[in-house]
């Protein structure tokens, strides 16, 4: 019983982070900060939802599949963010908020 | 136990399909793959002829693939017109291969030839697959096999213009095939089956509904695109002009007729009876388009400056005749269209073989470059002229027989028929003009450029093919019994008792 409630709580929390991420993508000023917001969705949101689903399904083959998906996301999502930010930086997209930093700390 | 004899209907498709991958990996700069492809084509041709004898004796041959019964598995259903088309396709392939023995090296570098010959076999197998199958979706699959391979063969042409031509062909062909698929989808939605005979039976319940009508429209549109019916013909002259000449000879003889064959199946065996009053609307539209096709096609052919292009637009016109015959909806019309499919294959293959010979010797197919060629290559140009006579429809040639039956069929339909007959005669006159244009330049204009090679007559292999085809034009012009009996029995098969 309590496992179910825990699962629902996790699902709700995951959905919350997904929404937060979406709002962040809309509201943030430039690419890097937006990516920061979207990685909330990618990692926290999706992980919580998948863990919630794993709790709901119990010990079945689906749980293993969900676990595999989670591990896959765990590896690929940060790397994808990294690659995107890297590509943006290399192709000359300047962080907007960098002007607020002192001169010597700018990228 | 099934004997080899029982397996012949499937061998006619699978033999080239089995040979194609082997040809693709054969070593030996084009000659060994050529030999292999030729053997496969020749065997297919023989099988097609033996099937024709069988169909003439026993009627339509069914074949269950995987031994699954009719609407659940795929069946082949080989009728009289199917075998006629199979003979045309494999014969054209054989003729084209002999033309390429002498003419391919000039246009396609030998290292690229093995893949080209593999595609050649795939085109042949795909086209034969379309004409033999009795399953609506299977037609789509084989359509794709043959068209993808055709795009590749066109793209292998010697000039850079071959590439945009091939791309245009690809876009139009994919569109056509997808429209066909949509039509099949609508039919399937309303009936739940894909087998042609079963479709026809079950469409009776849902006849006259809008989706069936739309299905008919999409099928005709798709097949019209594939078959280069008038407003959708733009890809064809380009493809014929820029493809390697032997390939053009092969394609011109058969590739646009196969969609027309499917059109016969769709119109007469699937949706035809179930469209109600819309059926007449549909065939009326198609007839209008076909009439415009043979007038406009001939007209553009007169003004074209490239020999292959002239013949390409002439094909547009000839397709107009065939579609007209098909859409008449009478047994005589269908017979005429079937005969013309066969005869047109004979004459176009001969004409393109002659063009290939000219291209081998002069390196150009522009009409102005042909000046004086009649004296340098007398046998080739004589063959061209005789095949041209057949194209015009002079008595004693195959072209005359097909026009004769077409006009006879048209006169049956009443006063409109007289008008159509006049238009057909007009179009034939235009054919006289464009063939004469070539002959005039070839025989009566002084040579402009000296051809360096001392041996000026075409390669022997091309000459043999050319003359066999020319003689066949006369043979079937004098004694058309073989084609006529097949065409008539097809008409009887699909329309009941011949009227």
């Amino acid at each position, binding site marked *: 019983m309590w496992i179910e409630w825990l699962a629902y709580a996790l699902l709700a929390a995951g959905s919350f982070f997904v929404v937060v991420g979406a709002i962040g993508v809309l509201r943030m000023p430039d690419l890097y900060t937006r990516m920061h917001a979207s990685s909330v969705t990618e990692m926290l949101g999706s992980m919580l939802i998948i863990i919630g689903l794993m709790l709901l399904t119990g010990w079945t083959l689906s749980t293993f599949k969900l676990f595999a998906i989670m591990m896959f996301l765990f590896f690929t999502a940060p790397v994808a963010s990294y690659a995107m930010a890297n590509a943006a930086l290399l192709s000359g997209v300047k962080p907007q908020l960098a002007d607020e930093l002192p001169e010597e700390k700018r990228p | 136990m099934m004997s080899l004899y029982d397996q012949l209907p499937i061998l006619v498709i699978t033999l080239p399909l089995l040979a194609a991958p082997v040809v693709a990996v054969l070593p030996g700069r084009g000659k060994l793959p050529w030999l292999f492809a030729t053997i496969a084509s020749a065997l297919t041709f023989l099988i097609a002829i033996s099937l024709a004898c069988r169909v003439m004796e026993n009627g339509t041959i069914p074949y269950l693939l995987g031994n699954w019964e009719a609407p659940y598995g795929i069946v082949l259903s080989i009728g009289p017109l199917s075998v006629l088309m199979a003979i045309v396709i494999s014969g054209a392939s054989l003729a084209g291969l002999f033309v390429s023995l002498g003419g391919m090296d000039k246009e396609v570098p030998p290292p690229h030839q093995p893949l080209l010959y593999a595609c050649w076999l795939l085109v042949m197998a795909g086209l034969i697959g379309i004409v033999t199958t009795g399953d609506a979706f299977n037609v789509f699959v084989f359509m794709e096999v043959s068209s993808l391979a055709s795009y590749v063969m066109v793209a292998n042409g010697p000039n*850079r213009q071959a590439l*945009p031509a091939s791309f245009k062909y690809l*876009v139009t062909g994919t569109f056509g095939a997808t429209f066909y698929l949509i039509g099949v*989808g609508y039919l399937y939605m309303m009936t739940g089956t894909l087998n042609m005979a079963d479709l026809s039976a079950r469409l009776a319940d849902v006849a006259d509904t809008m989706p069936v009508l739309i299905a008919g429209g999409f099928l005709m549109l798709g097949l019209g695109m594939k078959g280069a019916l008038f407003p959708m013909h733009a890809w064809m002259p380009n493809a014929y002009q820029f493809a390697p000449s032997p390939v053009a000879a092969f394609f011109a003889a058969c590739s646009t007729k196969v969609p027309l064959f499917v059109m016969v199946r769709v119109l007469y065996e699937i949706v035809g009876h179930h469209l109600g009053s819309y059926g007449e609307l549909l065939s009326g539209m198609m007839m209008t388009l076909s009439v415009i096709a043979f007038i406009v096609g001939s007209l553009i052919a007169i003004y074209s400056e490239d020999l292959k292009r002239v013949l390409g637009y002439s094909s547009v016109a000839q397709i107009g005749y065939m579609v007209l015959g098909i859409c008449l909806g009478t047994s005589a019309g269908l017979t005429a269209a079937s005969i013309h499919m066969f005869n047109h294959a004979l004459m176009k293959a001969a004409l393109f073989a002659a063009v290939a010979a000219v291209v081998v010797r002069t390196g150009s197919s522009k009409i102005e470059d042909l000046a004086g060629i009649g004296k340098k290559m007398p046998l080739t140009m004589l063959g061209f002229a005789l095949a041209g006579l057949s194209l015009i429809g002079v008595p004693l040639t195959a072209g005359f027989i097909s026009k004769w039956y077409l006009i006879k069929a048209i006169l049956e339909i009443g006063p409109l028929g007289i008008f159509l007959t006049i238009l057909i005669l007009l179009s034939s006159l235009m054919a006289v003009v464009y063939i004469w244009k070539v002959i005039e330049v070839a025989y009566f204009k002084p040579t402009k450029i000296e051809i360096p090679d001392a041996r000026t007559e075409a390669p022997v292999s091309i000459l043999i093919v050319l003359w066999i085809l020319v003689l066949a034009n006369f043979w079937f012009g004098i004694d058309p019994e073989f084609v006529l009996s097949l065409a008539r029995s097809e008409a009887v098969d699909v329309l009941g008792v011949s009227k």
Partner: protein
Amino acid sequence: MNLLGLYNYWVYLFLLLVGMYTVFAKNNYVKRLIGLSIFQSAVFLLFISMDKVAGGTGPIFTGNPVTDAVFANPLPQVLILTAIVVGIAGTALGLAITVRIREEYGSIEESDIRKMDDQS
């Protein structure tokens, strides 16, 4: 008159027309290929929309009598599996031809190529 049950078919039509428009109106060869693949995938949607049965499952026997009661129609799925493969085959070939066109002409815009062909 259950119109919502037709939503799939409306989207199919929309995609069909978007694809057709792209092929007719666009000048760029790659864009046309993209349009062509949208056009084809619209047809996939047409077939797959047909196969759904309300309350059914995918056509795989699980040995469970409850879920094995109603299946989606497997036949359209088979047809579309083949059609998807046809689609990618055509796209790949089209891209290869486009690459060659770009090498020979230096452009992949149809109007440019037509101009160059007219000059030669």
